[in-house]
């Protein structure tokens, strides 16, 4: 059983009291407990099981404008005492930083509404095994699939965030995650692909056979790929890749990147950064949402924010420290975005495929080719050549490259948005990028 609020609260207040007793002017503490159970399957039989049970504690102590932090997994009172002493000693010799402080009191979350993020259902390992068996049976019933690996993880967590302003709150969350990786082979190649589903509530997890079949189909269609020539071509990003563009955008508008001057979107507030049909929203209060939260990692209340309106950048993601540097109030985004999404475009998926006589449909990218300072983008990719709206053949060993500043302004979105993950996007087309192949 995951530890209850009372236990976590007592540890948190023990820490705060101790820090104050030692002379800290302010302090903030997070105590969390998490239990996970994973079952792994391979080729229709049990491969591994894994149980983890972890406590975690992190404390920040302030002495005026000086600050330092410690973290530990050992919650024995004696150990906590030693660590807080060490933390406070470090604080004393850490230089002052005028921007160090707890969040403003009136920004802290006051009412916690239930977002239904916890499902107490216990999915016993035997049931996980049954689920994975069904999943892999379905996946391997597809000819050409030579290997299947899958896993099911159940997680239950609880946490308390407390600070010396009297804020003390937290809540339980749960997640159920299942994934399947399949390998297919023909006379020309061996390919791998995957599918996964992750939900707060067990009843929302996809059917085992659907997941297995989808992974298998996505893998088989990649067999016998070709390499294409180097050219400028319009690129269509499958939903699982297009949401990655939002993650890059989120990193580039974090107050920390802006304050440090290391983002290509610095100073672009109220300017056009996307095509004028584009709207980006970050919504923390979606019921059962994978990214939902009542408050951010500093306790600041988080509300829905429109980050981009008709292509114009409206807000950064602001935490207390970097907010002070930029003269902005925290908007409850310490720790990043919550449920981030592009609003739907107004063209169907089918019409997007037909928009150009020839385009490249990308289903996977590899490499870390996003440079947030310059906006340059270059990654390895696999996908399909699409002609007149039809998938012609699989393509691999190519790269796609461009610069986000141009790419963002050339985005066309389909109207097929679904709320599956914490970051969601419709299928996306970007024109004018370069493919390097033969």
């Amino acid at each position, binding site marked *: 059983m995951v530890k209850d609020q009372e236990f976590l609260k007592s540890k948190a207040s023990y820490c705060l009291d101790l820090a104050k007793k030692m002379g800290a002017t302010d302090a903030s503490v997070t105590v969390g407990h998490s239990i996970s159970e994973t079952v792994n399957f391979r080729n229709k039989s049990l491969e591994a099981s894994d*149980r983890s049970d972890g*406590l975690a504690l992190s404390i920040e102590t302030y002495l005026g404008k000086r600050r330092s932090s410690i973290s530990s997994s050992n919650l024995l009172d004696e150990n906590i005492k030693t660590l807080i002493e060490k933390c406070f000693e470090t604080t004393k010799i850490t230089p002052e930083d005028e921007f160090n402080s707890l969040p403003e009191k009136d920004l802290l979350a006051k009412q916690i509404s239930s977002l239904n993020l916890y499902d107490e259902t216990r999915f016993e*390992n035997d049931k996980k095994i049954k689920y994975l068996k069904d999943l892999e049976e379905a996946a391997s019933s597809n000819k050409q699939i030579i290997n299947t690996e899958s896993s099911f993880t159940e997680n239950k967590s609880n946490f308390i965030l407390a600070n010396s302003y009297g804020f003390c709150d937290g809540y339980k969350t749960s997640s159920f995650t299942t994934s399947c990786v399949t390998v297919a082979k023909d006379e020309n190649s*061996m390919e791998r692909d995957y599918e996964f589903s992750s939900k707060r509530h067990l009843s929302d997890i996809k059917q085992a056979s659907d997941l297995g079949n989808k992974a298998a189909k996505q893998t088989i269609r990649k067999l016998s790929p070709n390499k294409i020539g180097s050219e400028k071509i319009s690129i269509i990003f499958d939903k699982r890749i297009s949401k990655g563009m939002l993650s890059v955008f989120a990193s580039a508008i974090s107050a920390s990147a802006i304050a*440090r001057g290391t983002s290509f979107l610095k100073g672009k507030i109220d300017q056009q950064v996307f095509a004028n049909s584009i709207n980006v929203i970050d919504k923390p209060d979606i019921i059962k949402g994978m990214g939902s939260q009542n408050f951010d990692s500093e306790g600041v209340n988080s509300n829905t924010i429109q980050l981009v309106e008709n292509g114009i950048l409206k807000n950064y993601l602001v935490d207390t420290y970097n907010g002070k540097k930029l003269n902005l109030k925290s908007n409850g985004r310490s720790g990043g975005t919550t449920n981030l999404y592009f609003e739907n475009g107004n063209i169907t998926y089918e019409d997007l495929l037909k928009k150009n006589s020839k385009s490249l449909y990308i289903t996977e990218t590899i490499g870390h080719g996003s440079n947030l*300072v310059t906006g340059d983008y270059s990654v390895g990719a696999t996908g399909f050549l699409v002609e007149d709206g039809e998938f012609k053949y699989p393509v691999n060993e190519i*790269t796609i490259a461009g610069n986000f500043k141009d790419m963002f302004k050339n985005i066309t979105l389909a109207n097929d948005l679904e709320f599956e993950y914490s970051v969601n996007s419709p299928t996306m087309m970007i024109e004018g990028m370069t493919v390097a192949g033969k």
Partner: protein
Amino acid sequence: MSNFFNKSDLTRQDADKLVSETLNNCDDGELYLEESKSESILLDDNKIKSSNYSSDLGFGFRAISNEVVAYSYSNEISKDSLKNSSENLKSTLKSIKGTYNHEIPKSNKKFYKDINPIEQKTLNSKLEVLNKVNEFLRKKDASVKQVTASFAGEQKSIEIIRSGGESLTDVRPLIRFNVSVMLEKNGRKETGVYGIGGRQSYDDYLKNDNWKNVCEEAYRIASVNLESKPAPAGEMKVVLGPGWPAILIHEAIGHGLEGDFNRKKTSAFHDLMGEKVASEGVTIVDDGTIDNRRGSLTIDDEGTPTERTVLIENGILKNFMQDRHNARLMNTKSTGSGRRENYRHIVLPRMRNTMMLSGNQTQDEMIKSVDKGIFAVSFGGGQVDITSGKFVFNCTEAYEINNGKIGSPIKGATLIGDGPSILKEVSMVGNDMMLDPGIGTCGKAGQGVPVGVAQPSILIDKMTVGGTKL
């Protein structure tokens, strides 16, 4: 050495007994105990931005029967907690029987000292170095707009208790010092990053004002990139510089030669043992035994002493890297490659220091032989798709080659290639093998472990460069 039992109601005798009881009918397994102390100190934007200390303690209990691995971890070292884990393992392995393999090779060699690098340098003197770095770089010229510098230090103590009471221990120091600088000139911004590290004390790396060399290198890379032009797109010849560019070997070849992917036959290399997978003259080893290197280990995380494993010898595939579990199922021996990020994770076969050995050509000869291509000196990160064999890595410093001469610097581009065939495209191997500066972390299945790489300059006849210029 940590004593894992002095603050617990669990005695060593209790632990021994429970381990033996639990693992009696299993093929393998152990109780892994770990205590780590780590710090990170960061200077950013003219200030000491964070100073964090962290201590972590826990155990991971593993039981293996045939192909099934049961694992349970907790950060509470107590009688109850270990008993719970034992019950959990038994319930997974219910009806399965095995024969415990007691054999663990022994070695007296140690590849680093039992030190705690965090305690060996005072916080004040670390802060002083970081401030000096900031001042030194900002004084250079007006184009320096941002400086980030950091120290990361760790001491990890482990103990492995096997069925029958055998105990194996190791104490592992690790440090890293990193500098990143951003320059801005004529509206263009570029970053340069450089770092050093390994399994010694901070001062072993920083003596003689060596921090200045780290600053100079980061500054030089950023300056080069300020002048960079768009990179070409398409297939061409690529000369790789010595040292860190060996992450190409790590991604293209290394991962595909890890035992688990080959046992499961999901690696593009699984049916190529004994076959020619590289040009003649290409020899690649994975070596855990180099003194004080980031990827070196006295024993691996299963207790096996590490070794120098020959992966490819003169073009022929010789060995995979093995942990005990995959080795047993493939009827071979562990190569001392069983590693885990920490007690929260299961052991996997992993790389240590992966190195291509020197040949006898010069870098100059390589450059001169290229009409049109690129010269890649440094890389960011890489990634591989084990199954299709396709891998990428990102240039952070690279130049055009035109008619046998090095030309303008080019913007960061991704290079993509095919693992099983790339080493057959190697047409020249340099005489200038170099180790990387000690900064690599390899990710696999969500676990990061410190690794090293090394190589001489090499010429690859055909690779796809992912630039924007057609």
